[in-house]
């Protein structure tokens, strides 16, 4: 039986052109171009590499508004076999808890899975909590922050990049993996595949299909709330100008103000 891989992706606002609504302090999504979260492209590529090697089935799932269809088509055009957009107004405003719950319920509905792969975090929320949250809901092991993922005879071997080194781990499936941004080179969509993808289409699952009560998901199912947003106030700095003619004065000032010390301890 073929190995079943599920890839979790998210459509995010292009980080280059983020617009904040000055009244609600929320992201103004209507004015921002949407793209596939880049680390999720690496997640899909990791799945497709395993598919190249052993012939797996790759299903892409995403929770998001209807405009995430472009991401679904894009994933199919890169080589995914099936794409499911989990979309319903009830899912809106979710923090990481109901997002993980909704994705885990979707995966349970899909049924069989050996490997679940996601990007390390989304560029718009940057929590990295959803992937491991899904693993906890499904009660399976996880390999987070992987720079390399391989599959061999029922095991996933992953290299985790930690602050002080690289940890190589081996875990029997089923397992959830989160992969690092830029950890591989995502294959391009071909025109041919894109045409096929549009023809084949993707599935849209609403809340009834996912099978969760409305009060468990979206904003109602979220433990956290954003109370307020404020601009990060920067420390006022003088920006005192010096040039090649008075560096001696600068050095004197640095030592006298004990910014520099004659001997560092």
């Amino acid at each position: 039986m073929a190995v079943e891989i599920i890839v979790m992706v998210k459509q995010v606002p292009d980080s280059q052109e983020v617009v904040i609504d000055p009244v609600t302090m929320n992201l103004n999504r209507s004015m921002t171009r949407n793209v596939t979260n880049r680390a999720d492209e690496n997640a899909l590529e990791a799945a497709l590499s395993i598919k190249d090697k052993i012939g797996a089935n790759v299903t892409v799932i995403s929770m998001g508004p209807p405009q995430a269809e472009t991401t679904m088509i894009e994933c199919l055009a890169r080589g995914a076999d099936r794409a499911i957009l989990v979309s319903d107004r009830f899912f809106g405003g979710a923090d990481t808890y109901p997002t993980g719950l909704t994705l885990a319920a979707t995966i349970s509905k899909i049924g069989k899975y050996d490997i679940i792969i996601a990007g390390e975090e989304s560029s718009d929320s940057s929590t990295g909590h959803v992937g491991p949250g899904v693993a906890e809901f499904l009660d399976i092991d996880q390999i987070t922050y992987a720079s390399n993922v391989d599959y061999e005879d029922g095991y996933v071997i992953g290299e985790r990049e930690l602050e002080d080194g690289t940890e190589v781990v081996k875990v029997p499936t089923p397992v959830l993996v989160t992969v690092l941004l830029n950890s591989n080179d995502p294959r391009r969509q071909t025109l041919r595949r894109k045409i096929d993808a549009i023809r084949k289409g993707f599935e849209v699952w609403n809340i009834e299909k996912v099978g969760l009560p409305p009060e468990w998901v979206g904003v109602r199912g979220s433990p956290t709330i954003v109370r307020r947003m404020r601009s990060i106030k920067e420390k006022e700095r003088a920006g005192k100008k010096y040039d090649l003619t008075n560096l001696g004065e600068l050095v004197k000032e640095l030592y006298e103000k004990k910014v520099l010390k004659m001997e560092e301890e």
Partner: protein
Amino acid sequence: MAGIINATPVADPQQYKNVFVFLETREDKLLRPALEMIGVGKTIANKVNEKLYCIILGSDLKDMADEAVSYGCDVVLGAESPDLKTFRTMPYSHIVSNFVKSEKPNIFLIPATRNGRDLASRIAVSCQAGVTADCTEIDIETDTRILLANRPTYGESMLAEILCKRHRPQMATARPGIFPIPEKLKSPKGEIRINKVKIDKSLLKKEILEFRKKEAIDLTAAKVIVAGGMGLGKPEGFKMLGDLSNEIGGVIGATRPTADMGWITRDHQVGQTGQTVRPRFYLAAGISGKIQHIMGMKNSETILSINNDPQAEIFKYSDYVIVDDVYKVVPALLEEIRKYKKEHVGIAVENRESS
């Protein structure tokens, strides 16, 4: 097993007391972010007259428990087993969840390191808690005991204050390098509760085949950092910065593009994908000041920037500004520093002897 369950609010937040922190370790030693957690956790606990509990897992906890107490921990909750020497998601999340469920903390802080986030996400689900990721400011509302978890968002331009009103514990992960390490106490007092535990085999399926340690330079502990950016134009620029850095007892920092170019190794990288630093003196040479770099160094006490572009963004974050070619300024600065030190070396020795 968590199963598919919703986030049910707790019936009575009053039953939840005290501040928990998770102390991250390697080879049965506390890591620097662990000490940072003790600092911020203790500050929060003191504000509401509650106790600071530190959770430590490992194979030999005695020294780590004593160290935690010496920094201000009131109660150490330890789980000890040879199987816990190295972090693994399944046994760690299982044990930590059980501590949380039995002790019912009001607040639980975990470092926003990679293993910390790996763990925090799972605990939040299994305990049906709200968690705020990667906080840079953490405070508590004293009358309600609501945690005020602040995290940067939208490319670090805004700070979002996130609350968790009806779920307990209130969880947050705290960005490493932001919260200061507390002073050691003169006469520390703390209760140490270490349980020897046996881990169920089903939780130990992950096999760690290898750990390749990076010879990492700890920029977060540096008092003086001399950093270079693409404005250096070539790898040799870092040699020039090295001479200056040696003269003033510093270490070398770098922007991500210079590391991407291979001019310098990754462990020198400061910024969003590198280390977050707060030295006494940060010298930025040939650094334009992209937000990803700024967020890693803007809390430095004093910042001096050298760039030939008068419009360079970095100047907005600088106490001292020199608009000129780094290859002219750095050698001249080095010469002035040597001159100053030569003139003042005798005086420095005198001052030290008299103090």
